[in-house]
């Protein structure tokens, strides 16, 4: 199997579950660090032009990551991940919620559970995210929070591309 180009996205609507697989060209130790260390998470967790900003990180069972997605206008959307199980360099599980800047979760809000697994073969690391949402509303909120700006930017790029293609066709 050619690992390098793997990016799969499988949806199980009945169970509100999504399975994502992605291969990275790096040894497991590096990929694990990038997923579990705040300084590195800050660099990639938020889709640009958003940026992720860590307020606190305690990567241990019962610990949590409190962070904000910061919009280009400086608006902060707070999220928290509560680590429930960690098997070093194999997998870790967290509950994900939206919250306020103190990490307080509104009891009425729903969250999602993420099981993130890591396997290395020939210098390539395969990461699997098994994501189960309490409600699709949570998934929707997640997209709205981290993504609106980024998506608009993507659509802008697509417009440019289409314009170029049309011009070439003339």
């Amino acid at each position, binding site marked *: 199997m050619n690992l390098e180009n793997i990016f799969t996205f499988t949806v199980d609507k009945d169970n509100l579950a999504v399975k994502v697989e992605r291969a990275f060209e*790096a040894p497991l130790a590096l990929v694990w660090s990038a997923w579990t260390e705040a300084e590195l998470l800050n660099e990639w967790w938020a889709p640009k032009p958003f940026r992720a900003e860590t307020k606190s990180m305690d990567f241990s069972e019962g610990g949590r990551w409190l962070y904000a997605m910061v919009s280009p206008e400086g608006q902060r959307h707070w999220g928290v991940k509560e680590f429930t199980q960690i098997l070093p360099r194999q997998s870790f599980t967290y509950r994900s919620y939206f919250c306020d800047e103190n990490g307080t979760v509104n009891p009425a809000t729903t969250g999602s559970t993420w099981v993130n697994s890591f396997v290395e073969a020939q210098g390539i690391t395969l990461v699997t995210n098994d994501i189960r949402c309490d409600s699709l509303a949570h*998934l929707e909120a*997640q997209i709205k929070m981290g993504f609106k700006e980024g998506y608009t930017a993507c659509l802008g790029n697509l417009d440019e591309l289409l314009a170029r293609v049309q011009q070439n066709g003339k």
Partner: protein
Amino acid sequence: MRRDIFQAIADPTRRAIVMLLAVQAMTPNAMAEHFASSRQAVSKHIKILVECDLLVQKPHGREIQYHLKAAKMQEIEIWLDQFKALMGKRFNQLDEVLTRLKARKK
């Protein structure tokens, strides 16, 4: 209270109602026959589905039939596509981080 497609299908009874109506329009009585829960409970779910703009009522003789607005279900597909794009974008950024980390190690 927010009412949208995501809330509509968050409940298993409502998902079952949507599946039934995907096959054919039905009266509330006909729908209730498919469920062990009380007629009242089924009516409550129908009411929510109408408020979520997923069902529409049409008179059928003396009775009222409910029809499914199938186009609404596509909203879910759109959100899923966006979530996929979000993860894809994140991972491309992670590729860059990993490339930098590997270079630093050398």
